[in-house]
């Protein structure tokens, strides 16, 4: 009883302190300031991204250009998460064989989805892919971008994996896409390093604001990010679904 009381007191004190602290932060208030008298770095970003970078979506400019190195890091985090998951959950060859043998003997619960779901999935799948590609190609113009577009594409693959038992991703293409998208991102960065002396630096040619082809290398990077995220997330789904089928 006393122990519980002490724990409650401790949590109460902690909660009170945090509540007081966080409530004194004016979240949502306009604290950007002006370019001459900036309170945060935001003023500079808001000025530079439409004027210098010709990117309509300031968030994209921040994510891909100003803080592009962080994005490269996050893409690698995703890549490492998929790699780590694969390293823990992959199946050894003999295990796979064993399982194949078992499959013949035991009568596995392997009911296909209803034809309603299957037909629906077949119609929706290309549309979902199209939406995903649209989202990451227009990342510099409209809300969304590589991460969102990639996640949308992965949901399309999830739909197919769930509705068709036999649906298999083409691993060869996936591996190539995954690696080339990552290398493409780094390659764009290296282009900046070699050409202008700063990693990930944008080109001088940026086009007109609000054009599809504008913002220099920013849309290109977001396309690479989109492909990378889509393939990584699909890989993760693939690994997890395979494990589930083994356990039965």
């Amino acid at each position, binding site marked *: 009883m006393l122990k519980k009381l002490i724990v409650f007191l401790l949590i109460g004190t902690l909660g009170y302190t945090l509540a007081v*602290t966080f409530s*004194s932060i004016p979240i949502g208030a306009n604290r950007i300031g002006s370019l001459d008298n900036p309170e945060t*770095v935001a003023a500079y970003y808001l000025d530079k991204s439409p004027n210098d970078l010709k990117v309509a979506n300031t968030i994209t400019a921040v994510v891909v*250009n100003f803080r592009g190195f*962080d994005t*490269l890091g996050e893409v690698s985090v995703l890549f490492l998460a998929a790699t*780590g998951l694969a*390293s823990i959950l*992959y199946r050894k060859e003999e295990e796979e064989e064993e399982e194949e043998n078992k499959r013949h003997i035991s009568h596995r619960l392997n009911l296909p989805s209803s034809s309603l779901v299957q037909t629906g999935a077949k119609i929706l799948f290309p549309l979902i892919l199209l939406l995903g590609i649209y989202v990451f190609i227009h990342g510099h113009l409209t809300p969304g971008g590589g991460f969102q577009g990639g996640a949308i594409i992965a949901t399309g693959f999830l739909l197919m994996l769930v509705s068709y038992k036999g649906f298999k991703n083409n691993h060869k293409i996936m591996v190539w896409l995954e690696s080339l998208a990552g290398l493409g991102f780094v390659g764009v*960065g290296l282009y900046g390093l070699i050409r202008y002396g700063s990693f990930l630096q944008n080109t001088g040619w940026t086009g007109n604001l609000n054009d599809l082809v504008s913002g220099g290398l920013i849309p290109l990077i977001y396309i690479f990010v989109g492909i990378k995220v889509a393939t990584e997330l699909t890989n993760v789904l693939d690994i997890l679904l395979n494990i589930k089928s083994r356990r039965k």
Partner: protein
Amino acid sequence: MVITPVHYIVAPLIAAFAIPLLIKIHKDAARIVPGIVLFYNVIVSLFLMNHIAEHGMISETLAGWQAPWGINLVVTPFTGFLATMVSILGFIIWLYGYRFKRTLKGGEVKYYEILQMMMIAGSIGIIITGDIFNMFVFIEIVGISAFSLTAFYRSRDGAEAGFKYLLIGGFASAFLLLGILIIYTQTGTLNMAQIAERMPDVPQQMKIVALIFFLVALGIEAEMFPLNGWAPDAYSQAPSPTSATFAAVVSVAGVYALIRVVFTMFDVEGVNNYLMVMGFVTMLIAEIAAISQKDLKRMLAYSSVGQVGLVLIAFGIGSNLAVFGALFLMLNHGVIKSLLFMAGSYFIYNTDDKKIKSLNGIYKKLPIVSFFFALGALAIIGFPPFSGFWSKFYILISAADEKYVFLIIGILLVTIIELTYYLRVVGRIYFAKQEGEPASHKPSINALVAMSSLALFIIVIGVYPDLIMPHIQSAADALLDKSNYIQQILSIKN
């Protein structure tokens, strides 16, 4: 400048993304490519150290935006020293592990090598970045790789250790993000130099709350008591080269992050005393726990945590000499503990279980490895003429200078404890009665080269510490000279 700090990160990333393709061309690519990359990082380190010795510190801007708006990578004598140390140790650990994982099949090797390489690259990233959010990203990279490698053997215990590490690491990330959020709302910037510059204007309450978030989050990474519950499990369950990496690379990066935040970003009174007290408690509890361990790798893990405690004590004292001692100890601990893990893993490889009691008389089976283990054990206790002696010596002197009598008593007491448990193992190796058949797993040549280069370092630095001391001294000066750091970063035009 031909080589810039960003090469540290870009080279491993290219390799990590390309290995799945390269493995189709040559099946050993997954083993060889990380070695080339880690060796390249050693070259980058040496080049940059040479460059800053002549031209002063480097602050590289990324994406072409100046420091507060873009991300910058900073190489000062301090960060350069740590990055050099981490990259050299990383390469030696790769060399050691090159044949160690021969038993694994193709696919597994790929995963292992990519994760191991990115863990080292991420640690270097934590050290050289000048941006607090970028540091968060690198901590994530190190964390994700470390969780997966801990559970790599897919045993029950390994999975438990990995899951524990994952949970507590997740906490660390969340707390770190909250801390960064508070700092950003108060200062409007993420650049560490600019945060430090604006810190005096931040209300005291905000400062304290943010600092607590940072201390909890980075305390987990730096293995500070009571946040180090994951460490013994993770160290003992991970593959041995990974355990050595945890001790030599990941804990260095964790301590660096803690020190950078406490020393450079915040100006809160009394945080030094906090570090000192927590370091003291960490050291005492870990060393006492180490005595009662029956498992060799667990014992080494507790000893690592104890050494980190000593490092924190020295940073807590905060005088120039103490910081010097702390950096020297970080270097020594990285080298010696990698050697101990490398030698220890060959013992484990040749016995049925991981227990200390099965090491009886193993020196007849593995004479060279036993010699390296004994050397490492003596060096980490602090026997002269090994390098471990000097770091402990300078920390004791600095404690005496500041008249912290209880610290001196504590450190000496802990030395006796260390003496007990290390010599117990060494005694078993050399003097206990031998049983069983000859060794089935002889150390491979590359492992011997890796271990002897570490042993050579221990002896050479022990006999002639002046070789390395000027570098450590300038590193300590660079860490303590906060105003110079701020001024340089905010004024450098690339």
